[in-house]
């Protein structure tokens, strides 16, 4: 039970980290490796604001999320849009190039030293023998609040509907008059902002250093793929599930094998359900690609 709580915390951050990645995949049709560097950047900007300038964590988080979101729009315009017509392969490798460049910028600006968020959120509660921290509640609450806010935006606003339409069928969206440039900017903003939020959350839970982008891209990829890449709710479920499986498995297997088990589960799921956990049938698409 305790480990399920841990898993929910891990899974919430993972879901937040993966949503942005999956959104870009759905609308731009490529695996954006640079997403993880946006997480690292978010983690660093947040820690600098909190640790060096003494900002309140929530204010720092908000500023971080907005500024990294804006940066994502710029990065997309400068690096990804010009090669968009060349297809997913070129975009994927461009994103690796962009990752390296962002990584370099992170080192140049923040150096390679590890940083820690000096925030503890104080309290600890015993609820039915389960150990729960205020920090856990804050993180899970924030993760869910932002996911719900995203859902409200996507389902309840015209721009949100345009985003979903673009994700579902980009060409038709254009035909129906959806302003693709604005929608694309919106997607990049949301994607990078969620990445930054995940970076801050990971920073608060553990630490920030220049390598965290590389460390987390594999898990993000795994959660995205497990969620079926094309469905946002699938990604949320997959993130939570992966978090819970990883944290609960610690109880039953030697923990050294956990990465093996995590990836083993991933391989098994993919082989049994090649389109991800919540896959809708998309045979036609599978045949075309």
């Amino acid at each position, binding site marked *: 039970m305790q480990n399920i709580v841990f898993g929910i915390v891990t899974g919430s951050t993972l879901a937040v980290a993966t949503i942005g990645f999956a959104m870009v995949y759905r609308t731009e049709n490529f695996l954006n490796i640079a997403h993880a560097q946006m997480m690292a950047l978010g983690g660093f900007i947040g820690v600098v604001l909190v640790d060096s300038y003494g900002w309140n964590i929530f204010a720092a988080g908000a500023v971080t999320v907005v500024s990294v979101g804006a940066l994502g729009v710029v990065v997309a315009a400068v690096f990804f849009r010009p090669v968009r017509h060349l297809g997913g392969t070129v975009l994927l490798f461009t994103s690796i190039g962009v990752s390296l460049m962002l990584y370099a910028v992170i080192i140049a600006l923040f150096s390679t030293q590890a940083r820690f968020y000096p925030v503890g959120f104080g309290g600890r509660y015993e609820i039915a023998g389960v150990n729960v921290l205020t920090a856990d509640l804050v993180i899970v609450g924030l993760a869910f609040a932002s996911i719900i806010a995203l859902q409200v935006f996507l389902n309840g606003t015209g721009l949100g509907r345009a985003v979903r339409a673009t994700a579902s069928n980009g*060409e038709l969206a254009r*035909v129906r008059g959806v302003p693709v440039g604005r929608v694309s900017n919106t997607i990049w903003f949301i994607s990078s902002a969620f990445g930054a939020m995940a970076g801050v959350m990971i920073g608060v839970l553990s630490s920030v250093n220049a390598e965290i982008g590389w460390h987390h891209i594999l898990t993000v990829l795994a959660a995205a793929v497990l969620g079926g890449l094309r469905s946002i709710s699938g990604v949320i479920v997959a993130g939570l599930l992966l978090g819970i499986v990883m944290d609960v498995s610690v109880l039953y297997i030697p923990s050294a094998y956990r990465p093996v088990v995590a990836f083993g589960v991933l391989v098994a799921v993919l082989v049994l359900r090649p389109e991800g956990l919540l896959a809708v049938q998309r045979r036609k698409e599978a045949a075309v690609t």
Partner: protein
Amino acid sequence: MSEAGEAAAAGSILRVRGLDAGYGGFPVLHGVDLDVSAGEIVAVVGPNGAGKSTLLKTIFRLLPAQAGSVRFDGADLRRTPAHGLAAMGMGYVPQENNTFPDLSVRDNLAVALRGQNPIEIRRKIRAVGEAYPALAGRMGQNASTLSGGERQMLALASAMITSPKFLALDEPTTGLAPSIVRERIDDILRIRDAGTTLLWVIEESPLLCLPHVDRVFVMQAGVLDPPVTSQAVLEDAALHSLFFGVDQAAEQSPD
């Protein structure tokens, strides 16, 4: 602007001149000329891979034109981004992937109404539900759960919801049972009667569809012949077998 006046004066709402286009290095269209006058139904027919879908995609700027021009209502479309065409009054129902599969029927309809006030949007969607009772009961369902016929219905309805001046239909009757084809034709005629100009790509069910069109352009290997009457096509045995007797199974993609 004098050209624009000229086109308008000639009653031509869509005017295509010398259009070349294709995929990557493969040219598909060769110097296509096409005029559609306000209020008429113009059909484009031709065998598989002739370039009919490519023509529509190029007109709607989903494919870049390599040469030539497309004017709508006198305005050169090269200056308009693809998503700006809808606002000019151009509607388009592609042959495939013509709905948003992950969106509900309601949202499919609402996409084109972006920016309008919610009450107006609701009113227009309700109107669609009245016109197409089959959709009315499925407003909350994802489009991917609809049957083929319902999906075509939705595609047509969502293109029409903004009441465009001009509507291009790419094979709206593919794979439908004859009774449903007749329903769709009735819809199309209603649309025409309401004042919308139509460009209709026909490949299946020519006997059912062609009698309702004003003029027919025959397309062959990327070249568009001058228009003839639908009667002429239906009566020309050679054309008839050439275009409509071919094996439908091969119809997959233009390349």
